[in-house]
């Protein structure tokens, strides 16, 4: 039985636990042993240490949701030299030594969807602010860039007045959003770029009694945002299905291990629709972003 090791950005957060669930479902179905190990904070070094120990243990396959796109390139090469399959999923590793990448949805689609939701909520114009996680998180920064791009291209009435960083901490997000609300009295909307920023921002808006006056949206999971969707502070947020992402990753690895080449469009047992594969970058693409609102907020992840 092959062993598939997954090193998330950090453990102890629901998002990666959901991915782990997907991995385990696929593991059971396709016959693989899943190892889930990760640092307790989103630390590059911690991640590298775990990948290294897994390589030394000669697992069949090891992969990450990377805290930095370049920092694990050397380890990817080392894995390859040891005949271990190296993959990245959710947040990618650069370089030629990554055997498989699995992407939840295209970054562009995700960022554009968020901005479209925002525009809908604020009527297409007004001042908005972004609250992000750590300032160095690669994928968050990329999403922010793409969101700005969408605003510039499609919503000239929207102005981004500030970008703040609150780390992976809901309390900080609440505090920073509170400060934004007083610093920019004409603020129309707040976009939370990571899973703690959205509920944090929503709480600040609710507390300031601005529910309905300042729109909150962003990228987060249904469990975290459910109370705020239920009480109407937040209309919709955007995500993908992390369980499916984990599942797809494990499936992809099993295909690689069995030396079965991917087609451009793949049927994956257990996933609805076709999964796209880009041969140039070795990337499997899960699908379109998922808009979560009152209708489907009961999803559990």
């Amino acid at each position: 039985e092959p062993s598939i090791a997954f090193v998330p950005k950090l453990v102890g957060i629901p998002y990666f636990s959901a991915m782990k669930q997907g991995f385990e479902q696929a593991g059971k179905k396709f016959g693989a042993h899943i190892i889930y190990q990760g640092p307790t904070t989103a630390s590059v070094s911690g991640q590298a240490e775990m990948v290294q120990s897994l390589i030394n243990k000669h697992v069949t396959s090891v992969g990450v949701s990377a805290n930095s796109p370049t920092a694990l390139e050397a380890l990817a090469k080392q894995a390859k030299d040891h005949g271990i399959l190296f993959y990245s999923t959710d947040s990618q590793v650069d370089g030629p030594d990554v055997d498989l990448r699995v992407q939840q949805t295209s970054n562009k689609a995700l960022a554009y969807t968020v901005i479209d939701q925002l525009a809908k909520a604020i009527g297409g114009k007004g001042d908005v602010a972004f609250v992000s996680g750590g300032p160095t998180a690669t994928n968050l920064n990329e999403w922010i860039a793409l969101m700005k791009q969408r605003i510039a291209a499609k919503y000239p009435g929207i102005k981004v007045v500030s970008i703040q960083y609150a780390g992976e901490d809901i309390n900080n997000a609440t505090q920073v959003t509170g400060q934004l609300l007083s610093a920019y009295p004409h603020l129309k909307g707040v976009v939370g770029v990571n899973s703690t920023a959205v509920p944090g921002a929503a709480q600040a808006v609710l507390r300031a009694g601005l529910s309905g006056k300042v729109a909150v949206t962003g990228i987060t999971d249904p469990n975290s945002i459910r109370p705020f969707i239920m009480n109407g502070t937040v209309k919709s947020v955007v995500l993908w299905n992390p369980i499916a992402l984990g599942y797809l990753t494990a499936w992809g690895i099993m295909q690689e291990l069995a030396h079965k080449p991917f087609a451009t469009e793949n049927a994956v047992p257990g996933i609805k629709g076709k999964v796209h594969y880009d041969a140039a970058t070795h990337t499997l693409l899960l699908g379109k972003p998922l808009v979560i609102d009152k209708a489907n907020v009961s999803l559990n992840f």
Partner: protein
Amino acid sequence: MSAAVMGAPKVPRLRLPQGREALLLITLAVLVAGIGMFSHGAFWSRINLDNLFVSSAITLIPAIGMTVVMLTGGIDVSTGSMLGLTAAIGGSCFAAGWSLAATVPVFLLAGAGLGLVNAVLIIKGKIPPVIATLGTLSIYRMIVFIVLGSNWITQIPPVLTRVFVVDHVLWLPVVALIALGLVIVASLFLRYFRWGRHVYALGNNEEAARLAGIRPERIKLAAYVMLGLLTGFAALLTLGQSPMVQTSTGSGFVLQVIAAVVLGGTSLSGGRGTMAGTLLGTLVVQVVDDGIVLLHIQPFWNGVALGVIILAAIGLSSRRDAGGM
């Protein structure tokens, strides 16, 4: 080396008001005036003041306990993990559907219990406070992970937010009023009550205090347990501020608390410091943090500004004042 080291009275070099409190008060006034002016009134908005008071209160409440602990010559660096763990324990009760009335004591007892663990390790185990609490810092955090698994708790009753944070009494959010009340009580206690004076005596010279019939163990025990209790209370308030328990809840918190206390003039070696100083220290840190967003400074400069302000504000006074050691 300064005059005081040699056993002579201090002679100020600059004609500035004496004492850390006065200096902090001036710093605070300058900051508030500056930010108030350049933020086009945003500083004085209801939302901002509420925000400021709520976050100050949540730091201040454990800082009261930390001040007492540091006055005894100890320190507790596990406060952040303790806050996380009490939030996880109390949050689990909420998640299990317990009522508010049943859960509030859980927060307080859990906090006091964890403080007691620290106290026992330090007093009975004779482990130096930093080491003991560095140890429990990681152990408590581990237990947070075990309690939460990897699910964040979101079933926090909204009434917490309403009661502590949204509702106002006398222009102040309730939590700010509570914090202020606690500071006053603690301050009176330290200044006028026998036990309070024993805290200072102990921190000044433990051996002498022991010889004078003061029982250092009891005072230390009380101090750590009280810090735990207040941290438990702060955990409850944190959930009022933002209704979610994460595995990382409270990380980074302890530095903020210690910074406020030390900034307020409490000596790390014990025996010197006041509650008023702690109150002002807390406010200075929070106002600086607030001002950076209000003045539309690019957030990357946030840390730089905070660092420079602390160095400037404290350096100005410490240069003549810290020599007393």
